[in-house]
C-alpha cells in the first residue's frame, strides 16, 4: 500500500457539533476515493481541513509523509493539492480564459512580475486554452464568467483544478446541480482525468460515485464507518442502515 494521503484521528468541533470525530482515512496514489455520507456528515469540513481553509482541533494529515496541518492554504497548493468547490467559486467579473489563466499562472511560480502584459503571455494563454479544450469550453473562453451556465461553471472548476497539475485533486460535489446530460458529461470528463491524478471525491450522486470510485468511504457524524470497494460498500449492512437505505 502506498498511501498518498494519510488522515489520522482528525477531530474538529463547532460548538457542540463534531464535524470530524476521530476521522481516519487513507488515499492511495492513483485511486479515485469517494467520500459519501448523509447531509451534515462533515464531508466539506473534511475537504476544508485538507485544503487548509480550516484547522483541525486534533489530528494529523500526512501528504507524502509530510504533516499538512501547520501549513497555510497557499503552501498546500504548492505541494500538489488542488481543490474544486461545492459552491462554484470562480471570479465572476473575469473572463473564462482569465480565470483558468490565473490557475496556470499559479503553477508557474510567483507572480511578482510587473511589466509584461499577462493576457499577451503565450504560455498562460495556451496553457489555459488547452485546459478549456479538455473540458469542452474552448468556444466560451472570451465570455465573462458570469455569462456561463451552472453546468459550465462546474466544468470550469475542473479545468482550474487540473491547471495546477496537482497529484491530488479534492473535488467537492462536482455533479452538484447538474442535469442528466450534464452529469453524464462530467462523469466522462472525470474518467479521463483519473488516469493521471489521484482524486478524493465528495459526491451525493450515487450513480456517479459507483461508476467512478475505486474505493468508497462512508462518513456518518464525522466518523468513517466503512471503507471498501463499491461492491463491498453496497453489501455493507451498516452502510445500508446509515445511508443508502434511507433513499
Amino acid at each position, binding site marked *: 500500500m502506498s498511501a498518498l494521503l494519510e488522515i489520522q484521528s482528525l477531530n474538529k468541533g463547532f460548538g457542540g457539533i463534531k464535524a470530524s470525530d476521530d476521522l481516519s482515512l487513507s488515499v492511495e496514489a492513483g485511486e479515485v476515493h469517494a467520500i459519501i455520507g448523509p447531509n451534515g456528515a462533515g464531508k466539506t469540513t473534511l475537504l476544508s481541513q485538507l485544503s487548509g481553509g480550516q484547522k483541525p482541533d486534533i489530528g494529523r494529515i500526512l501528504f507524502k509523509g509530510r504533516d499538512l496541518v501547520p501549513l497555510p492554504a497557499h503552501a498546500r497548493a504548492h505541494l500538489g493539492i*488542488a481543490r474544486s468547490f461545492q459552491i462554484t467559486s470562480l471570479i465572476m467579473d473575469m473572463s473564462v480564459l482569465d480565470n483558468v489563466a*490565473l490557475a496556470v499562472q499559479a503553477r508557474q511560480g510567483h*507572480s511578482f512580475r*510587473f511589466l509584461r502584459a499577462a493576457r499577451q503571455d503565450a504560455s498562460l494563454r495556451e496553457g489555459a486554452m488547452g485546459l478549456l479544450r479538455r473540458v469542452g469550453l474552448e468556444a466560451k473562453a472570451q465570455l465573462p464568467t458570469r455569462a456561463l451556465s451552472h453546468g459550465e461553471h462546474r466544468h470550469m472548476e475542473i479545468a482550474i483544478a487540473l491547471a495546477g497539475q496537482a497529484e491530488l485533486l479534492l473535488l467537492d460535489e462536482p455533479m452538484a446541480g447538474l442535469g442528466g446530460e450534464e452529469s453524464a458529461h462530467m462523469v466522462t470528463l472525470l474518467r479521463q482525468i483519473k488516469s493521471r491524478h489521484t482524486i478524493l471525491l465528495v459526491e451525493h450522486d450515487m450513480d456517479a460515485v459507483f461508476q467512478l470510485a475505486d474505493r468508497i468511504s462512508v462518513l456518518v457524524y464525522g466518523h468513517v464507518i466503512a471503507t471498501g470497494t463499491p461492491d463491498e460498500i453496497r453489501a455493507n449492512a451498516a452502510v445500508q442502515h446509515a445511508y443508502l437505505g434511507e433513499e
Partner: protein
Amino acid sequence: MTRMTWITLTVMALLAVLPPVFFWTGNAFYLDLATRLTILAIAAVSLNLILGYGGLVSFGHAACLGLGAYAVGIPAHHWLYGGMDALATTNGFVQIGLAVAITALFALVTGAVCLRTRGVYFIMITMAFAQMVYYLIVSIEEYGGDDGLVIDTRSELPGFNLDDPLQLFALAYVSLVVVMLVVRTIVNSRFGMVLQGAKGNEERMVTLGFNVYLYRLVAYVISGAICGYAGALLGNFTTFISPEMMDWARSGELMFMVILGGAATTLGPVLGSAAFIVLEEFLGRLTIYWHLPFGLMLIGVVLFVRGGLMGLLRGGKE
C-alpha cells in the same frame, strides 16, 4: 483603437492644451485649478490601484498625500530657519525621494497590520492610522502644529523652475501621464491579475496557491509611494501645508474621485478628480450652500450610473 482609447487620449490632450491656453489668455486662475486637479488625479490614480483593482477600501490615503507634502515642507523649513542640518535642503530630488521613501515605509508598516483585517475593520484601521499621523503632525510645534507650515522655497530641480506656474503644471501633467501608464502596466501584468483575482474571489486565489496577503501588501506600498509623490507636488503647489490635508475627510474625497470617475479604469480617477474640483469650484461661486447640490449630484451618479463617469461614457454597459 477602441472607443475608450480615443476618449482617454482626447481627455488627456484637452488636459494638456486647455490650461496653458487659459494662462496665455490672461486666466491664470484656471491654470492653478488644472494643476490642483492634476496633482489630485495622481493621488486618485494611486488609490485606484488598491481600491479599484484590489478592492481594498482604504480610508487613510490622504495620510500619504500629507506625508509627501511634509517631506517637502520640513526640509525647506530647516533650510531656512536652521536646525536638523542633516535634513535641511531644497533639493527636489532629495525631497521627492524622501516623500516616496517615507510613504512607502508608512504603507509597508500600516499595510502589514491593516491587510490582516477585512471589510469594515479594514476601513476603520486604515482611517485610524491616518488619524494617528494627523495628530502626530498637529502635536509638533516646530512645524506649526495645526496652524500648518508655509513652504517658503519650492523644490529645486535642474531644468525646472517650479515657481513658474506653467512649468509646475507641466511637471504635474507629465507625472500624471507616467503614473497612469505605470499603474496600467502593473494592472495588466501577472501581478495585476493576481490583485484583481483576489478582489473577485480571495478564497479561490488562496486555494490556487497565491499568498494574497503579500501581493496586496506590495500593491499597498506602490500605491502609497505614488501618493507620496503626489503629496510632494501638492506641497510645491500650495506652498502652505497643514495637518488638515490628511484629515479622513480628504481620504473620503480621494475615494469619491475614484468612484465618481469610475473605479478600475485607467481614465476614471482623472475624470473623477476633474469633475470633483471643477464642480466644487463653480458651485462654490453660485452659492455658499454648494455642498447640498454637490452632494446630491454625487449621490445621483453613484446611484444611477454604474461604473461612474466612465460607465456613462461607455454607454452604461459594462
